[in-house]
C-alpha cells in the first residue's frame, strides 16, 4: 500500500461519484427538456393568439366603419410592424370569409390552402394559429399567423445548451465541493498514512499519523498509531530487560536485538504536526475558487452592463468607454500585486485574504448599484483591489506552505481553482444575467465573496508569512528589458498572447455576440469552451514541451494558432466561426502558456541575467499583466474604426505576425534546463 495507490483510490472514488452524478443530471436534463418542449408550443400559440387579437380588433374596427375586408389599406405596413416586434411570426395573412388569402407577409407553409379552421395547426414546416374575425356574430374573414418549426427547435437548442453548460458547471462544482468536504482532509490523512506505512515497510517504525478525527478512517489511523506505539513500547521494554539481564542467553539475545536496531528504526515522530501536505494547501483552494468565481461571472455580461450605464462621454468613442472599466480593473490588479505581496508578508496571508474578500464584497455590491460610468469605474477599481489582495494572499499561502518538492503540486492546486472558476463563472454568470438581470447577478457575486471570507475565517490558519526572496523593483524591469532575448519573449510572445486573450474574451466576444442578436448565455458558453480547452490541454502541452524541449516552437505555434482564429472570422462571420475562434484561442493559449514560463527560466540561466529567478518571474508577470490591460484598449480602438469582423482580423493578424517575429528571434536560443513552474495567471483570466 503506497501513496500512489491511495491517491488513485481517492481519484477513483471521486470519479465514481462524478459518473453517478453525470448520469443523474443527464436524466434530469432530459426530463426537464421534455417538460419544456410540451409546454413551449402552447406558450407560443398563446403569444400568437394575443398579438392576433390586436390585429383582428383592428380589422373589426374598420368593418365597423363599413370598410369591406377586401378594401383594407396598409396591411403590408401593419404586418411589417408586427413582424419587427415578433420576428418569429414568419407568416401572417388575412383572408376573406371563404378562407382565400387577401393580404399576407412571408412565405406560406407548403400545404396551406384555405384558412378555415380556428386553433393551432401543424402545416408544413410551420405552426399556424388561425383566428376567425367576426363583427356582431357575422363572419368577416380569417387571420393566420405562422411560426416556423425551426424557431421552436432553436429555442429548444438554446435550453439544451444552457442545460449542458449547467451540467458541466455542476460537475466541476461537485468536484470542488467534494474536495472541500472530504478531499482535503482525506488527502491529508491518506498521505500521512501512506507515509507511515511506507516507512514501516522499510523498517522505520518511528512515524505516527497523529491525526484526530472521529470518522471511521480516523479510528483506523488511530489503531495504526496504537499498534506502532505498542511495537515501540515492546522494543523499549525489551531493551530495558536485556540491559539488566546477564548470561549467555542474554548475550545472544542482545546480539540479535542489536541487529534488530540496525534493521529497524524506532521512536515517535508525528507526521501530521509538520506535514504541510496538499490537504493543508487545499484549505485556500475553496475560498479562492469562490472569490474568482464571483468575478468570472461578470465576464460574459460586464461590457453590456457598462454599455447600459454609460451615457456618451465627450471625445471618446462609445466602444472605448466600454473598454475603460475592463482595462482599469486589470491595471489596478497588475500594479497592486507587488505591493500586496509585500504587505501580506507583514500582516499575514489570512488577514489580507479576509480584507480582500470584504473589499471585493463592497466592490461587487456597489457595482450592482452603480449609477453611471464614473462611479462604476470607482467600484470596479475597488473590486480589483480586493481581487488583487485575494489573489496575492492565496498565492503567498501556497508558497509559504509548500516545500520545493511539493511546490508544483501546490501551484497546480492554486491554478486549478482559478481555471475551474474561469470555466464555470462566465456561463453561470451569463445564464443568471439573462434571467435575473445584470445588477442581481452582481449581488450573487457579493454572496460568493462573503462565503469566501467565511471559509477563510473558519479554515485558514493564522501563521507568520515567509518572506519571498524577491520583489519587483523598477531597476529589475530596466535590466531585463535591456536583454534582447527577454525583450523579444515579452514583446513578441507574452504581451501579444495576453492582448489577444483579453481583447477577444473580455471585450470583443461579449459585444459581438450581442451585436448579432444573441445573449450573455451564449457568451458564457463560448468562454466556457475556451476555459475547458485550457483546463484539459495546458497540462498535456506542458508535459509534451518538457519531453520534447524546443519551447520556442510551442510558444510560436500556440501564438500563431490563437491569432489564426481571429483571421478566420474574415472568411465569414457567424456564431460557428466565432466558436472556432474561441476554441482555437483556447488551444493556442494552452499550447504556449507553460512553455512561455519555462522559457523565462531558461533565459535566466542561458543569458546569465544578474538577478534571481523569482525576481525575473516577478517582472515577467508584471509586464504580462500590463499586456492584459492594453488588450481591451486596442480592441476598442480598432473596433471604433473598423467594426467587429475587422477588429478580430486585425488583432489576429497582428498576433500571427508576432509569433513569426518571435520564432525568428528565438531560433538561436539554446534549449536547456527543466521547467520551473511559475505562478502564472495561467488562465489569463486571473490578473
Amino acid at each position, binding site marked *: 500500500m503506497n501513496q500512489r495507490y491511495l491517491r488513485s483510490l481517492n481519484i477513483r472514488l471521486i470519479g465514481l461519484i462524478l459518473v453517478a452524478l453525470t448520469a443523474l443530471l443527464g436524466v434530469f436534463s432530459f426530463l426537464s427538456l421534455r417538460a419544456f418542449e410540451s409546454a413551449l408550443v402552447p406558450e407560443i400559440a398563446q403569444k400568437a393568439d394575443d398579438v392576433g387579437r390586436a390585429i383582428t380588433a*383592428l*380589422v373589426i*374596427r*374598420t368593418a365597423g*366603419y*363599413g*370598410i369591406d375586408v377586401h*378594401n*383594407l*389599406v*396598409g*396591411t403590408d*405596413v*401593419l404586418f411589417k*410592424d408586427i413582424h419587427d416586434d415578433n420576428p418569429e411570426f414568419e407568416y401572417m395573412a388575412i383572408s376573406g370569409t371563404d378562407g382565400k388569402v387577401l393580404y399576407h407577409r412571408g412565405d406560406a407553409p407548403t400545404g396551406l390552402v384555405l384558412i378555415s379552421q380556428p386553433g393551432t395547426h401543424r402545416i408544413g414546416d410551420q405552426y399556424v394559429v388561425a383566428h376567425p374575425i367576426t363583427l356582431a356574430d357575422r363572419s368577416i374573414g380569417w387571420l393566420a399567423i405562422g411560426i416556423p418549426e425551426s424557431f421552436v427547435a432553436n429555442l429548444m437548442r438554446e435550453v439544451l445548451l444552457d442545460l449542458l453548460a449547467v451540467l458541466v458547471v455542476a460537475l466541476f462544482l461537485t468536484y470542488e465541493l467534494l474536495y472541500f468536504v472530504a478531499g482535503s482532509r482525506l488527502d491529508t490523512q491518506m498521505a500521512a498514512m501512506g507515509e507511515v506505512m511506507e516507512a514501516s515497510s522499510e523498517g522505520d517504525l518511528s512515524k505516527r499519523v497523529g491525526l484526530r478525527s472521529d470518522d471511521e478512517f480516523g479510528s483506523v489511523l488511530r489503531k495504526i498509531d496504537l499498534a506502532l506505539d505498542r511495537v515501540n513500547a515492546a522494543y523499549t521494554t525489551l531493551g530495558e530487560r536485556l540491559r539488566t539481564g546477564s548470561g549467555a542467553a542474554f548475550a545472544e539475545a542482545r546480539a540479535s536485538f542489536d541487529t534488530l536496531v540496525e534493521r529497524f528504526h524506532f521512536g515517535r515522530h508525528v507526521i501530521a504536526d509538520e506535514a504541510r501536505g496538499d490537504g493543508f494547501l487545499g484549505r485556500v483552494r475553496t475560498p479562492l475558487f469562490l472569490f474568482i468565481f464571483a468575478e468570472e461571472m461578470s465576464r460574459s455580461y460586464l461590457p453590456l452592463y457598462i454599455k447600459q450605464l454609460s451615457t456618451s462621454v465627450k471625445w471618446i468613442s462609445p466602444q472605448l468607454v466600454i473598454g475603460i472599466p475592463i482595462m482599469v480593473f486589470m491595471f489596478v490588479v497588475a500594479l497592486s500585486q507587488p505591493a500586496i505581496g509585500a504587505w501580506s508578508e507583514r500582516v499575514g496571508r489570512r488577514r489580507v485574504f479576509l480584507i480582500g474578500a470584504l473589499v471585493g464584497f463592497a466592490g461587487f455590491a456597489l457595482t450592482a448599484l452603480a449609477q453611471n460610468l464614473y462611479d462604476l469605474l470607482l467600484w470596479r477599481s475597488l473590486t480589483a483591489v480586493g481581487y488583487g489582495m485575494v489573489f496575492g494572499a492565496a498565492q503567498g499561502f501556497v508558497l509559504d506552505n509548500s516545500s520545493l518538492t511539493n511546490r508544483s503540486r501546490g501551484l497546480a492546486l492554486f491554478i486549478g481553482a482559478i481555471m475551474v472558476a474561469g470555466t464555470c463563472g462566465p456561463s453561470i454568470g451569463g445564464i443568471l444575467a439573462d434571467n435575473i438581470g445584470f445588477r442581481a447577478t452582481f449581488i450573487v457575486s457579493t454572496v460568493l465573496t462573503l462565503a469566501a471570507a467565511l471559509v477563510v475565517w473558519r479554515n485558514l490558519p493564522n501563521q507568520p508569512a515567509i518572506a519571498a526572496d524577491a520583489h519587483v523593483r523598477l531597476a529589475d524591469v530596466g535590466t531585463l528589458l535591456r536583454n534582447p532575448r527577454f525583450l523579444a519573449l515579452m514583446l513578441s510572445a507574452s504581451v501579444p498572447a495576453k492582448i489577444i486573450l483579453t481583447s477577444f474574451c473580455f471585450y470583443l466576444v461579449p459585444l459581438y455576440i450581442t451585436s448579432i442578436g444573441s445573449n450573455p448565455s451564449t457568451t458564457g458558453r463560448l468562454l466556457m469552451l475556451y476555459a475547458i480547452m485550457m483546463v484539459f490541454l495546458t497540462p498535456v502541452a506542458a508535459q509534451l514541451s518538457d519531453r520534447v524541449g524546443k519551447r520556442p516552437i510551442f510558444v510560436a505555434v500556440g501564438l500563431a494558432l490563437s491569432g489564426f482564429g481571429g483571421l478566420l472570422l474574415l472568411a465569414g462571420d457567424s456564431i460557428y466561426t466565432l466558436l472556432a475562434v474561441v476554441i482555437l484561442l483556447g488551444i493556442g493559449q494552452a499550447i504556449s502558456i507553460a512553455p512561455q514560463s519555462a522559457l523565462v527560466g531558461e533565459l535566466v540561466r542561458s543569458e546569465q541575467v544578474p538577478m534571481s529567478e523569482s525576481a525575473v518571474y516577478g517582472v515577467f508577470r508584471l509586464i504580462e499583466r500590463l499586456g492584459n490591460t492594453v488588450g481591451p484598449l486596442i480592441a476598442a480602438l480598432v473596433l471604433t474604426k473598423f467594426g467587429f469582423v475587422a477588429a478580430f482580423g486585425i488583432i489576429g493578424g497582428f498576433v500571427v505576425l508576432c509569433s513569426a517575429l518571435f520564432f525568428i528571434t528565438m531560433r538561436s536560443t539554446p534549449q536547456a534546463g527543466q521547467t520551473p513552474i511559475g505562478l502564472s495567471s495561467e488562465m489569463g483570466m486571473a490578473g
Partner: protein
Amino acid sequence: MKRVVSLLLAALFITTLAPLSGRAQAPTGAPERTKPFRIYMITFRGITDVERGFKDYLAAQHVPVEYIMRDAKKDPKLVPPMVAEIKRLRPDLVYTYGTPVTLGIVGPYRKPNAKKYVSDIPVVFTLVASPVGAKIVPQLASSGRNVTGVSNVASTKQQMQAMASYRRFKKLGLIYAGNAKNSAVIVDEIRGLAKEMNFELIARTFNNDAKGEPTVVGVADIVADLKKAGAEWLYLPPDSFLGDALYEVVPAAEKAKLPTFGSTEQMMKGGALAGIICHYYSIGQLTAYKAQQILVQNKAPRDIPVETLKRFAFVITLPLARHLNMYPPIELFNYAEILTEAGKATKPKKSS
C-alpha cells in the same frame, strides 16, 4: 388629452392652494381679491371655440373676470386704434387671437416701440401658427418681454410625416394667400423639409383682385392645375384667407380627386380629408391656464413658455375617403379620430 388632464389637475392643485396663500397674506394688509380682473379680448372673426374654452376654464377656476370684447372683423387695420384704447383703459391682461392681431398689438420682438404697441400690460396670444416665424417671440422658451401664448399647430414636419403615413407622396400641392407673412414663413419651412424628406413642393397663391387683395375667383382652376402638375396631396396651411376660402377650395379639390390635409380644426370642419389638429376648445383652455398664471399667480409672461398642446388628434373624414377611394392605412384606426360625416364650410357673410 393627457396633457389637458394634467393641466387641469395642476390647475386644481393651484386653486386649492390659492385661498390658503391668500389668507396667509391677509395679515400683511393685502385684501383678498374680489374685484374682477379685466381682460381685453380681441377676436379676429368673432367668438370661436377658443374663446369658449378660455372663458369656461377661468369660470371653472373661479377666477373673477370682466371681459372687454373687441373684434378685428378680419381686418388688421382695425387693430392700431385698439392699442390706443388699451393704453387708456389699462386692463389687467390683453388676449389676442391669431397672428395679424397679435402682431398689431405687440409688434415684432426686434422692434420694440412703446408708443405703437402695448408693452407694459401682459399679453396672451392664441392660435398663432408660428410664433417664432412671425417674429412675435425669439424662441418658445421665453418671449423676453410681456408676452406669452399658445400655438395651435403641430410642427410642419410632424404634419408632413402624418400626411405620408396616410399616403406616401412625391409631390405636394399647397395654396395660400400671397400677402400673408405667416403663410410665407410656413411655405419656406416646407421647402426645407421637401429636400430633407425628398418630395417636391408645388406652391400656388390665390389670385389677386383689382385692389391687390387675394380672391377666391379662379381657385378651382388653380386646384385643378395642381392636380395636373402631379400633386398627390393638397396641404391647407394655417392661412386665414384660406380658412375663409375653404367653401371653394375643398369642393374643388374633391372634384379634382385631390386629397386635402388640414392644419387646423377649422380646415377639418371645412371638410378636409385628414389633418393633425388641436381642438380649438382645448387651445382656449391652455391659453386660459397661462392667463391664470399671470393674473392669479403673478407670474411674469416672460417666465411662461409659449406652448402648444402636446397631443394632437389625427382626424380623418371617412365619407370623403370612401368617395376618393383613399381609405387610410389600417393601423391609423388604432388612434385616429374618424369623422363619419364630412364637414362643410360655408361662405363667410362678409369677405374682406
